[in-house]
């Protein structure tokens, strides 16, 4: 197997490592979905994955294209109606980790997936929040994963789709949110966690082969680093193999449909 890997693969694998067997994970589609399933297929076989379509304890063999693909239901422990999902399972406080992506993110973990420009007169109308506004406050912690870009990681987001640490410090407590909020950011270049006081996302681990310049050049805010900065270990053979086989199976399954 080719042990060379790209930054996307590094991102997904680094994110997967942050999950454990005892987590109950509310999974967003895209990068979060891949990371969660790699975790399940490698070191955390007992992790509980929940998709907002109502599928609880799902174990897909291929990556779903949407949050409601058939594979999710077929492999789930049970599938509940969507109102129950949001009421009993998310709002009920049963989720340990809400795993989100972002179109725009600021350094306090606030996310915008609603609109670029003015809400009433948008430059780009994005899909909107979906489950995110309540995932952000009901899940015990939030992990965020996204590729770095100046367009994505910005000083000021255009719209507060979901609340991270707000203006930082104790802002969450100030508005009576009792959950931890964004506690981990995994990009294609580094791992970030909030500064214990200011709550500003701060790099604690740089992926192998990445420079500080690369991180700053693709981030719209002034990047800070923890003192005991680490290097993220590159993907192991088993991690890479699992990820690539998963992507291959997924591609094949989709092709099977296309070639009709």
């Amino acid at each position, binding site marked *: 197997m080719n042990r060379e890997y790209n930054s996307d693969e590094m991102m997904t694998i680094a994110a997967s490592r942050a999950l454990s067997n005892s987590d109950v994970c509310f999974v967003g*589609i895209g990068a979060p979905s891949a990371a969660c399933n790699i975790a399940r297929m490698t070191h955390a076989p007992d992790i509980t994955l929940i998709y*907002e*379509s*109502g*599928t609880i304890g799902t174990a897909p063999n291929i990556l*779903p*294209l*949407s*949050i*409601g*693909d*058939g594979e*999710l*239901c077929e492999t789930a422990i049970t*599938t*509940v*109606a*969507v*109102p129950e*999902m*949001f*009421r009993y399972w*998310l*709002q009920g406080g049963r989720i340990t980790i809400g795993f989100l992506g972002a179109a725009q993110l600021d350094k306090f973990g606030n996310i915008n997936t*609603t609109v670029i420009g003015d*809400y*009433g007169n*948008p*430059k*780009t*109308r*994005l*899909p*909107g*929040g*979906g*489950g*995110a*506004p*309540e995932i*952000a*406050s*009901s899940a015990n912690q939030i992990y965020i994963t996204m590729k770095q870009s100046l367009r994505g990681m910005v000083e000021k987001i255009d*719209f*507060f*789709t*979901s*609340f991270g640490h*707000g203006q930082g410090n104790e802002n*969450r407590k100030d*508005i*009576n*949110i009792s959950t931890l909020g964004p506690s981990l950011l995994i990009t294609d270049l580094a791992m970030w966690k909030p500064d214990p006081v200011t709550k500003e996302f701060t790099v604690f681990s740089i992926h192998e082969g990445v420079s500080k310049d690369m991180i700053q050049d693709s981030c719209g805010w002034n990047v800070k680093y923890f003192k005991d900065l680490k290097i993220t270990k590159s993907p192991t053979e088993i991690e890479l193999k699992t990820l690539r086989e998963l992507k291959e199976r997924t591609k094949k399954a*989709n092709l*099977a*449909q*296309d070639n*009709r």
Partner: protein
Amino acid sequence: MAEFISLKEGVSKTLNKGDTVCFEGFTHLIPHASAHEVVRQKIDDLTIIRMTPDVIYDQLIGMGLVKKMIFSYAGNPGVGLLRRFRDSVEKGWPNKIEIEEHSHSAMAHAYEAGAAGLPCAIFRGYMGAELKKVNSNIKKIECPFTGEELTAVPSLKPDVAFIHAQKADKKGNVLIEGILGVQKEAVLASKKSLVTVEEIVDTLDCHPNATVLPDWTISFISHVPGGAHPSYARGYYKRDNACYIEWDKIASNRETFREWMEENVLKVDAEVFKSRVEKLREDRYE
């Protein structure tokens, strides 16, 4: 009591210009055939509701039939943005629709409250989120026991709900299995409903706690095999992911959109859905 009817007649008897209507389905069992029939009948001035408006809402908007949309996530699932929705909101083509935007949790609670006959739903939501600044249908309410500030949204009570389901029995009881979405709530919250089904059987013969809508909760049932395509019907056919990816291209341009609608919606009828799923039937892969 549910009446069995052709989709064409059913739509014309159910939906009126200016109505508030939902075509629900959460990736699974999306009622494409019903939406296309509405397009053919050019029923307009609609307020359309859906948690996850996707391709059919892009189509209704692009065809100029929509006045307002109430929603929580307007995307092409797994693919990207909705081009016709964007064109309307960003450029006003063919008209600028009004939007009332919520979160999934708010919409789910609001459908539930509608089904439960309540005027509003309360939940713990929108904490620190900006939607409550741009949507006047998000209000505060205080728990009279703890003093906690909760959020209230009005319940959803559409004039008409369209859903697609796996089976109806001959009496008109309807079975939904797999990913259930908010379809049961949508039907129970609505004044009228039309259900398209893959199959009509003598008896449902299902699990005692399966999701069944009794015949007297439904206005009309139409037998439209394949009626969810390119969405899927568990036990019948798989999701046509390629169509969703293709839609991104078709909808990116006003011209190609109109042409596609002409060829694939306006010039055909509900019968075509059967053939569209022929090669996606589950037994091909199992």
